[in-house]
């Protein structure tokens, strides 16, 4: 096939710059001492240090998971920097104006609104740079209705009881290799608490940026929605372009009490490595939501475009009767990228419902797998699941796989699974071109059509960004 496939898939990564900023970092390597250092640095209470050490000791007994359909050199955990923070000129910023101008410029370049005046109307942002949260906007406005939105470290100080109550309640520190690692060394992240009956008046957002070359990013996000509360949360991520791999091992826990609703959207655009697969982020993330209360509702929407390796399964534990779990995903891989992503829907309560819509797009030499588990436990009377997994291939040398696991232990359950595979090949492109539509626009139109069921779940601004991002990522790939 001639060049159009190759021209449309290879846009440069535009967030690949490095910010030259003085950082406060610990030497590479992991030990109990490093963990004690991190904990002391953050002035943490003893129970949290204990939580970390327990996780670390358990992690030492665990092996890296190998069941995913991804191949990569195993990270050397002794070469990773576990704490790196931009050195503040002052210990505490009173406002954004006091933040290091270099850091401010970084986020301006990334288009992240950290100035409230300039902020996107109606989105509050928490900004995490390497290991620490830099700033959180709109806090007073949110506090007025009882919402807590702050960095994780700050929550540990100001709301220790809430953190202690919920931390590890959805993803136990021993859950899996990377979750255990995260539990031992996590440095910051976001904390959200929506009190009973409050509908969060604006979208909340966290923007993650890895800057340090050797650093791993291990953030921890905890979102709790009390009875009848609701919130929409957005997560965005970028990283500089290095020819070595950085490790990103986050844990996100969501807790929804009775009738509460949490909508969590991600547009992931970590650096994916170059065309030959050099560099890029290893994205090994554990995301799980617990629908703890009756008729609670958790919805994950993700657009995964970056990372050299993606290993990620945002899941829902449907404990409360009548609770609802949803997973909408677009995963795009190009060049040498590998993604193994999907979800787990664990039906425990009665009449629980889950929906899975997964769209995988593979181009270049990439490998893209959907892996999903639908489990209906014995007491989940009337449970229902619908899964739709579609794959699209662009070009000749990419691959797509689907691994659906279905375990049903209740006879009244209804589980439906549909899967399709399609291809953007020369016939499809010729059809568009023959109507006067250039190849790039044709691909963008075909891909958007393919992803429509997922994009419409995204908040407006994110949907626009996602559309643009997919087109950029595929620029050069069809011909």
């Amino acid at each position, binding site marked *: *096939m*001639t060049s*159009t496939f190759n021209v449309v898939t290879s846009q440069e990564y535009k967030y690949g710059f490095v910010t030259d900023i003085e950082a406060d970092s610990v030497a590479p390597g992991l030990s109990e001492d490093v963990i004690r250092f991190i904990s002391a640095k953050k002035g943490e209470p003893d129970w949290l240090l204990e939580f970390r050490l327990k996780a670390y000791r358990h992690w030492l007994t665990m092996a890296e998971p190998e069941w995913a359909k991804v191949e990569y050199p195993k990270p050397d955990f002794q070469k990773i920097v576990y704490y790196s923070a931009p050195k503040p000129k002052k210990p505490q910023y009173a406002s954004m104006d006091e933040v290091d101008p270099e850091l401010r410029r970084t986020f301006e370049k990334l288009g992240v609104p950290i100035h409230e005046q300039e902020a996107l109307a109606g989105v509050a942002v928490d900004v995490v740079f390497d290991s620490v949260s830099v700033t959180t906007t709109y806090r007073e406005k949110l506090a007025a209705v009882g919402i807590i939105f702050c960095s994780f470290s700050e929550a540990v100080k100001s709301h220790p009881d809430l953190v202690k109550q919920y931390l590890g309640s959805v993803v136990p520190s021993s859950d899996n290799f990377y979750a255990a690692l995260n539990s031992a060394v996590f440095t910051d992240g976001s904390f959200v608490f929506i009190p009973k009956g409050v509908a969060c008046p604006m979208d909340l957002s966290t923007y993650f940026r890895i800057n340090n070359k050797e650093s791993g990013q291990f953030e921890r996000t905890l979102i709790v929605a009390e009875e009848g509360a609701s919130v929409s949360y957005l997560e965005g991520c970028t990283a500089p372009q290095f020819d070595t791999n950085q490790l990103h091992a986050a844990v996100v826990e969501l807790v929804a009490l009775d009738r509460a609703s949490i909508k969590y959207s991600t547009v992931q655009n970590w650096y994916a490595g170059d065309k030959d697969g050099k560099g890029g982020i290893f994205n090994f993330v554990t995301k799980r939501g617990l629908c703890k209360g009756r008729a609670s509702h958790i919805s994950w929407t993700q657009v995964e475009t970056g990372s050299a390796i993606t290993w990620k399964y945002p899941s829902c534990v449907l404990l409360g009767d009548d609770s609802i779990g949803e997973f909408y995903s677009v995963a795009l891989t190009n060049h040498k990228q590998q993604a193994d992503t999907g979800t787990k829907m664990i039906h425990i309560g009665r009449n629980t419902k889950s929906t899975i819509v997964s769209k995988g797009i593979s181009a270049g030499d990439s490998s893209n797998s959907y892996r999903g588990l639908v489990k209906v436990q014995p007491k989940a009377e009337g449970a229902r699941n619908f899964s739709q997994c579609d794959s699209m291939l662009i070009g000749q040398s990419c691959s797509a796989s689907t691994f659906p696991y279905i375990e049903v232990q209740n006879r009244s359950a209804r589980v439906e699974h549909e899967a399709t595979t*399609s291809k953007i090949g*020369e*016939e*499809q*492109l*010729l*059809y*568009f*071109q*023959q*109507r*006067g*539509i*250039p*190849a790039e*626009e044709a691909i963008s*139109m*075909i891909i*958007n*059509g*393919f*992803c*429509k*069921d997922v994009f419409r779940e995204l908040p407006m601004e994110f949907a626009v960004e996602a559309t643009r991002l997919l087109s950029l990522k595929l620029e050069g790939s069809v*011909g």
Partner: protein
Amino acid sequence: MLSIKNLTASINGTPVLKGIDLEIKAGEIHAIMGPNGSGKSTLGKVLVGHPAYEVTGGEVLYEGRNLFELAADERARAGIFMGFQHPIEVPGVSNAAFLRLAYNKKAEAEGRDELDPLEFDDFIHEKIKLVSMKEEFLDRSLNEGFSGGEKKRNEILQMAVLEPKLAILDELDSGLDIDALRVLGDAVNKLQRPDRALLIITHFPRILETIQPQFVHVLSGGRILKSAGKELATELEDRGYDWVLEEAAAGGAR
């Protein structure tokens, strides 16, 4: 309008067209007929720039320009249209949005005003009458779940929207019942003007009863074996293709 001289083309190294000569002038309707595998669909695909085919020799001038210097989408915007034998299905892309984008690309290239969705809505509602298409097909995904006949109807709708100078219709009649064939044939006739030309590629002469060509060419083995007037179609209907092939064999390579 279109001048094809000694055109040769191959796919994966295998020659398919072995020296085609054909002149098409504005206002003319030509039919290319031939047995299956003769290369007649290839001719259409080469003309619209299908990337699987390699042009190995000869020249094609379209309105005096070297056709092969234009990319497939440029040829389309310059007024060449192909009604495909097997139109593809595109889930999630609305038929109306696709038609509007195609219309606007051409309008832009010709320096005409582009139509916004509301203006296009008025425009397209006039056009669908021509092909007797139900309105609901505009909101459906492009060709997705369309029957063979509905797809062909949609092809002719696109032709009506784009008003090409040169329309190549590849096996328009396949998958069509008699009534639909008549509706679409009439639509194509209504779109024909003195400054436009039609190239009908077909295996069966049936369609030529509605869309009546002035010139009929029999293509086989990658060459045009015989060219004549409309009466040749009738003769082919009665006698099949074998006699043309035999006649050509007896008369030498051409």
